[in-house]
């Protein structure tokens, strides 16, 4: 079964993939998106990102996005996880899995879920740089 939620440690992507697809013989396409922490930033060399979040609002928003994606795109199932706290370079901060009968729905749903997380989940990130210094990322 797919799921949604805030995660406070590394995400086991293989396990999440298995739980979305296992035994679902109607699934013909699985699209996975991993939002990974990159080292480069216009403001310096990133050591890690720190994610702050509003527990009651963020968790609810992630489940709402997952539920809407399943409805809107007719998915068989979906998973939407966002890691919080310190996330080092190279590790996954956002995992989106969309499973559907056909590929178009899975591709579109995955992109839509990523955009919706950025737009409506009460989560904030701060770049922490190698050698000191930090900067909150402001969108919009």
């Amino acid at each position: 079964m797919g799921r949604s939620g805030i995660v406070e440690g590394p995400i086991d992507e293989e396990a999440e993939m298995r739980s979305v697809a296992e035994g679902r013989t109607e699934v013909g396409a699985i699209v996975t998106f991993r939002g990974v922490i990159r080292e480069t930033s216009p403001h310096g060399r990133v050591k890690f990102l720190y994610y702050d979040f509003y527990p009651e609002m963020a968790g609810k928003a992630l489940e709402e996005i997952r539920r809407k994606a399943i409805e809107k795109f007719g998915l068989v199932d979906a998973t939407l996880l966002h890691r919080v706290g310190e996330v080092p370079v190279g590790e996954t901060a956002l995992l989106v899995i969309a499973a559907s009968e056909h590929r178009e729905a899975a591709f579109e749903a995955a992109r839509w879920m990523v955009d919706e997380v950025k737009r409506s989940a009460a989560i904030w990130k701060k770049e922490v740089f190698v050698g000191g210094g930090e900067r909150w990322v402001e969108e919009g």
Partner: protein
Amino acid sequence: MVRMRLYGWVAERFGWREKSLEFEGTIEDLLNGLNAELAELISKGRVMVAVNHSLERDLSRRVSGDDIIAILPTFSGG
């Protein structure tokens, strides 16, 4: 006791995360009484207000008792 929460860069800017205070009145009065800069950030649209875990645009809404008022920067997850 009304509970106030700050998140993201707002919490760092003001140096606190959560406060409880005796208050009954509008959100606008609460913010003006608490910190003029905070009230200004909201009027300029740089931050949002949530009451009891839902975004609230009406600053004339009255809050009291167990209400939780949160000040939220623009979301930047992902």
